[in-house]
């Protein structure tokens, strides 16, 4: 992605080094956590609940202390700094707007406690409100605003004192889908306008993909993969990521032989050729992942290395494509998406067709565990 490349040479803004966190001294909520966030980058921490993403954010904000390791902001360890001295703007999941203050007072709060003059405060508040397009709402109280408007105020308040690092903890979780998409766009626009570094926590993979320069996928307190969204989608390195990001057909098998980066894998009765991603040896258990959109139905014979018979279980019309569930390679829920074009090939439920895909669209990952069984 262009953005990511632009930042590639820039300096490191935030650095997690060997961070571990345990609340009770036994279970590690976060461990072996190493992550660098570039200056001006929009980085998302993505993972299911309990994956430690919010804990990481809270440690960065200073509300939790790491059990092990160090966090550095702009090269400086922030271990001894209380939250108020870190100069980080933070947007909370529940917005945390102060209900007894007007919008303007909420925005003025961080400026007041810094001892800023009235005029200066007024100017900054007005600018922040313009940034989130809420001019004219100064005198309202949070309770008189819609969810989306409250969200904008919360963002404005986190930005008004001009921090260069902003943390957002599932800020769009409480909004409906339409508003969420609008706010995703807004937050991206603000990020581009201000050039601040944003660390964003979400469990919504689509949200992370849409907004971020890079996404760190977390699972059980560890980082599975850090990569730009396209790479996560196209080149997942771990079966968890493949499962979590977008839709994937996953086939469990055993490695037969490896030739350069092409692997032959036995899946049930069939042998599938796939591209090698995770290091493995012949005989290892493995998981193959194939995007439904990369599967061809009734291809020209001989076009693909991997070609199998498949019985069509059902066909769902999804507008721009057809979603076809087939029995193939020992699975009953193998999914293929075919574009909805004139003459897409009249397939009917119950038909036996050929399906096929290239080895490069099929990735050999770690064995993972079969959550989707």
């Amino acid at each position, binding site marked *: 992605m262009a953005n990511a490349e632009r930042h590639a040479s820039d300096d490191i803004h935030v650095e997690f080094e060997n961070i571990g966190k345990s609340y009770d001294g036994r279970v590690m909520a976060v461990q072996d956590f190493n992550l660098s966030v570039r200056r001006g980058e929009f980085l998302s921490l993505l993972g299911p609940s309990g994956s430690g993403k919010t804990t990481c954010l809270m440690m960065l904000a200073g509300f939790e202390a790491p059990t092990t390791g160090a966090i550095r902001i702009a090269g400086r360890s922030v271990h001894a700094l209380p939250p*108020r001295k870190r100069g980080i703007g933070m947007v*909370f*999941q*529940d917005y*945390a707007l102060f*209900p007894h203050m007007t919008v303007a007072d909420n925005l003025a*709060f*961080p400026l007041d*406690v810094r001892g800023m003059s009235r005029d200066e405060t007024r100017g900054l508040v007005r600018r922040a409100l313009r940034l989130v397009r809420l001019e004219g709402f100064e005198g309202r109280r949070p309770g008189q605003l819609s969810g989306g408007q409250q969200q904008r105020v919360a963002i404005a308040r*986190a930005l008004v004192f001009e921090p260069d690092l902003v943390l957002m903890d599932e800020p769009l979780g409480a909004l409906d889908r339409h508003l969420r998409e609008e706010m995703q766009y807004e937050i991206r626009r603000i990020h581009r306008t201000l050039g601040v570094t944003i660390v964003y926590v979400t469990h919504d993979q689509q949200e992370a993909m849409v907004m971020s320069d890079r996404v760190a996928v977390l699972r059980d307190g560890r980082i599975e993969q850090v990569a730009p969204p396209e790479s996560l989608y196209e080149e997942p390195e771990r079966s968890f990521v493949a499962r979590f990001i977008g839709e994937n057909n996953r086939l469990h098998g055993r490695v037969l032989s490896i030739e350069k980066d092409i692997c032959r894998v036995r899946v049930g009765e069939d042998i599938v050729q796939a591209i090698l991603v995770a290091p493995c040896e012949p005989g290892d258990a493995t998981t193959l992942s194939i995007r439904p959109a990369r599967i061809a139905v009734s291809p020209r014979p001989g076009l693909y290395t991997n070609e199998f018979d498949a019985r069509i279980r059902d066909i769902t019309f999804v507008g721009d494509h057809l979603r076809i569930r087939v029995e193939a390679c020992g699975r009953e829920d193998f999914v293929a998406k075919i574009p909805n074009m004139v003459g897409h090939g009249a397939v009917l439920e119950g038909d036996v067709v050929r399906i096929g895909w290239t080895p490069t669209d099929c990735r050999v990952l770690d064995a993972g565990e079969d959550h989707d069984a």
Partner: protein
Amino acid sequence: MPAKITMRSAAENRARLRAAGLALPLVAFVGVTFVAPLVSMLVRSVYDPVVADALPETIALLDDWDGMNVPEEAVFEAAARELLVAQEERTIGQIAGRVNRVQGGLRSVLVVSARRLRDASGSVGRDSMVDINPAWEEVETWHALRTAGERYTTRHYLAAVDLTRLPDGSVVRQAPDRRIYVPLFVRTLMVSLGVTLLCLILGYPLAHLIAHSPPRRGGLLLALVLVPFWTSLLVRTTSWIVLLQNQGVVNDLLVAAGFVADDARLALIYNMTGTFVAMTHVLLPFMVLPLYSVMHTIPRSHMSAAASLGARPGQAFWRVYWPQSLPGVGAGSLLVFILAIGYYITPALVGGSTGQLISNMVAYHMQTSLNWGLASALGGIILVCVSILYILYDRVTGGGRLGVT
């Protein structure tokens, strides 16, 4: 359309009536056990027909009296006749008691006169009555009789605020040594304020701790607040006697620790200190519960947000937390204050002579002096004070968060 609307509203009315019908037993209960006694008590403070009914002619004649000189012969004759009837009907004691409250010492004058009048023969008038007791020749006696004979009277309310009406009708303050109730009201207000403040100072951190503890620990702490709440008031008050008395636990500990000499043990009970300590303890839950109920709705994230925005803990508290907790502070303080103003049993048990409050005086007049009119007037004044506070309380709690700041 209009017909339809009428039908629907008729059905609604029926439903409403049915709902109201369900509340009838409660309305009846409240009416019989609360409203009726309250009204009859309040009536008593301004309406006292005993003397007026027993001595109708005398009182009627005294109405036309100039009040400067001893009344005419006709008044004496009427008084003698009606006192005699009262003696025979055995109501003389009640009458004498009421006149005695207006002016001390007249009880025996009336009772003895009535008894002696029975023995007298022939026409009785001024001479014979003055013979029986020279007090009948004094203008003040007749003033007292006239005052006691007022069917509708403000004298109880005047007495309750240490005022008295002179024979010429002007209202003046009682002599300094007879002013009892105003100082007592002031003391009651001060104690109530003090107890409220103490409850707030002690209860605020406690409520905060409970509201922001993990659920299990919060529940346990809340139970610890509630257990004394469920314990009998009498038990709690008497346990303070055990703790605070001269040979009690606290004094023993202080002596053992060498802070206090054995012959100079602190007087911690049967005085104002005892009233303060016991009342604060008894009323603390009434502060903690409203505070807790407001505080646990304040999200934890607000303090985090304030910190992340650069506020020091003090700034975060005073500018973010405290204003949001104000409805609880208002509700708790008013509740404690209202309860403290009318507090009776605790000061009665641990207050000694210097720790008594206005309600102890109400009880005294109800039970000992039997001056129910004055007791009612004192109660009426407390009721008005509490009602005003209740309206405030309602505003504070009903007005919602935004209304307060």
